[in-house]
């Protein structure tokens, strides 16, 4: 306390809070090459985020003081979102489980995309409903469904709905109902 008063640092937030260990520390955003302006991906408040990048890697995510919504603040989840991007548990490769299989197998992204396209076409062919029992048009498949969208961008939701509508997939749903 005396040291704080003597150093004109009554709140203990300035130099008097420094120790040998902290003197050697650097700001986490030091050396950032660029900053992207982003929005928190968790709840729907929409807090502004500043994403700091060095060597093509996200090194830190902080609140954006310019945002009239959040004024620079982030909650524990928003403040941890650098770890969301760089989580040690994040997956970077396609994984494939064959029918009745007991293990994941490797598969190239290209092959996975091709197989998924084939599955959609084949299932759609088998389950297509052109019209109902009274002859009214249906033009759809009830053999395929999709779930998810509330964590995604508007543009992504637009393409999801557009493609599935074109394919006749009507069982398209997201988190809004749960």
């Amino acid at each position: 306390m005396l040291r704080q008063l003597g150093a004109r640092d009554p709140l203990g937030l300035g130099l008097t809070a420094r120790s040998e260990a902290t003197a050697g520390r650097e700001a986490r955003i030091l050396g950032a090459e660029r900053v992207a302006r982003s929005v928190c991906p968790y709840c729907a408040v929409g807090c502004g985020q500043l994403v700091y990048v060095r060597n093509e890697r996200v090194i830190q995510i902080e609140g954006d003081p310019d945002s009239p919504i959040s004024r620079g603040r982030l909650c524990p989840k928003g403040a941890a979102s650098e770890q969301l991007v760089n989580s040690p548990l994040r997956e970077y490769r396609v994984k494939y489980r064959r029918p009745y299989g007991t293990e994941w197998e490797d598969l190239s992204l290209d092959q996975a995309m091709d197989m998924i396209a084939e599955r959609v076409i084949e299932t759609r062919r088998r389950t297509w409903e052109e019209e109902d029992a009274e002859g009214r048009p249906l033009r759809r498949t009830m053999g395929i469904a999709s779930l998810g969208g509330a964590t995604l961008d508007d543009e992504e939701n637009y393409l999801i709905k557009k493609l599935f509508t074109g394919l006749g997939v009507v069982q398209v749903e997201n988190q809004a109902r749960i």
Partner: protein
Amino acid sequence: MGSNMAECHPVGFQWVMEAKRRGATVIHVDPRYTRTSANASLYVPIRAGTDIAFLGGIVNYILQNGREFREYVTAYTNAATILREDFRDTEDLSGLFSGWDPEQGAYDPASWQYEGMVAKPAVGMREVTVPVGERDGHRGDEPEPEQDPTLEHPRCVFQILKRHFSRYTPEVVEQVCGVPAELFTRVAETLCQNSGRDRTTAFAYALGWTQHSVGVQNIRCAAIIQLLLGNIGRPGGGILALRGHASIQGSTDIPTLFDLLPGYLPMPHAHHHPDLDTYCRMDAPPGGYWGRMREYTVSLLRAYFGDHARADNDWGFGLLPRIDGDHSTYPTVLAMLDGRVKGFFLLGENPAVGSANSRLHRLAMAHLEWLVVRDLVEIESASFWRDAPEIASGELRTKEIPTEVFFLPAAAHAEKDGTFTNTQRLLQWHERAVEPRGDCRSELWFMYHLGRRIREKLAGSSDPRDQAILALTWDYPTRGPYQDPDAEAVLAEINGYGPSGPLSTFTELKDDGTTSCGCWIYCGCFAGGVNQAARKKPGREQSWVAPEWGWAWPANRRILYNRASADPQGRPWSERKRYIWWDATAGRWTGHDVADIKADMAPDYRPGPGARAEMLLRGDEPFVMQADGKAWLFAPAGLRDGPLPVHYEPHESPFDNPLYEQRANPARQRFERSENRTNRDRRRFPYVLTSYRLTEHHTAGGMSRFVPFLAELQPEMFCEVSPQLAAERQLVNGGWAVITTERSAIEARVLVTDRIKPLRVGGRTVHQIGVPWHWGNRGLARGSSANDVFPILLDPNVHIQETKAATCDIRPGRLPGKEA
């Protein structure tokens, strides 16, 4: 009410604290005492599932004491409108409205209509909640609904409302909700004192109101209060939905939902919508902005199908698939369990943890032929075939599960460009900071390239089945190392184009094929070819409304129905609450926001012959989406469970309905089967169970249980019980308990706390138990999924599950096989 804002929307809550510092009264009504309660001026504990009894009590308090904002109510709501003679209220029919068909288990809503006019709702299942009559409109050549501006006519909405809510006295509130009458009266009186010309009151809610078999009616009841008190369309007023995902609003506006097309256009129904004319005639009232539904729809069809949408093929309306029932999440998963759904895409959602009766979802996925999971981490829904609790218990065997599973790693928000639409309808652009690594890709990339591959494989097909997919416009410019579609090009398509480039606002849309628009309410977000959602002028450099940060739909309007912030003559209701007002000299509306009425429509404007859409409404009618320009205290159409809110007990409740013979919502959706039994025996399941979220976790945990800091902050599944319940069931703080329902059993650490108080209801004590629902069997923090014990039991209007009020039993100990 129905929200723990301080913990679930902490950064939004800073504004509540700011308001409190400036003298606002903050009231928190909730079964649990939380950090929101701790920061409130007044905390009111309530029995879960009794919100309508509480809110109905407030309506009654206002009406019995003449506390309504009379001028606002008379001018801007349907209080004066007279109902048909054959309408019968719940007062007359022991808790049912007229039109109930016990065989169909559904209402015929014909008798709820206005005298002299058939009104159509702005949203909802329009075609099934409006009787098909000869008079299906408003104004123009149609007769006006009958009115009594004195509000004295016994069949006018105001009198019907008064009678309907007359039994919701403070004593009844105490009897039903467990809230002492004088505490309730304090709340009601505070609301009344803080409303009127000079003051406004806001309601904030979240899933605590929606996840009920009466979810929609909970919010309807708040709307009635806010309209009676004049708190809609005015600064500091409103009913604020605090939504829980970054773009859950966006994914509702541009819907990944079965019953909607973009901009709340209904998905065509096989029985009701054979062609575009019938679709528009059945679903669009002539008056108000829905009177332009044909322009919105033709422009959408042009955005979807380009030159394949032409005048000579009904603008491609026939290319759209049809719905013919409830195809929402839960009926779909039941169809999956029965083997009717073969293929399933999971795009950033984890139903093995996050959906009610999550155990049933895991069992259902084991019936799929193929499953595509796109997520950041290997969530429970991706790995159920090898490590679900049912594998451990032997109910499922890996080698017997036929499901082919593709796990595709997704890109994180910092790895893609795009917009989120937040809970206040604000579109905010986020920039890509880095490219995603490895096989990680955005959903934009996935959908675009999946569509491209399917179209290439089907190219040249003459099968009628393939007409629509081949007719789609699907030629987006790509960029970067992975040929990512350009998100701005997609946003520009959503905004729409006219003959001279990007459109500025939805009133420019045409039904002659000259405009295209992917979502009419978003028209203007790319006005002038500029990404308006990317505007980031610092808040401190602009007005308190901050109109130059992002872009709010529609038309960058920050408060909806803001015409109601001025009186019928266009003057602010008070200096203190000025927001928009009529400038007679300039002949325009002016103020802090974009006016929610045609900018040059004078307050004394009256529609003449030949007027259509918004020009059919008068200059003093603020509710521009409504057929009659009025806010609906009484909803003559649009709802499946009645035109007014009614207190029904939750499907699972320890009590009978003290108010009516009808116990629970008669129209609730039930799916009784062996995998989804509901609790009937009140002695076996005597306690109320309610689920909730924590600050440190997010929904089903895919974005938090796998993040080290967050997993460390909230490492373990727990339940909250009162000291009294702990004593009754020998539960020990920090020990284990098993919670049981007809669905399943889960285990949790016990948190014995005064935060959750036993209530006196109907002369006896009721205990409530709170459970967070974030955990699953994977990630850094693991535990039982609370959703395992909740049933699939739905609100009939929006098909949301009742997970905020169920019943259960609780015992000390652990699940079999988990004992130490």
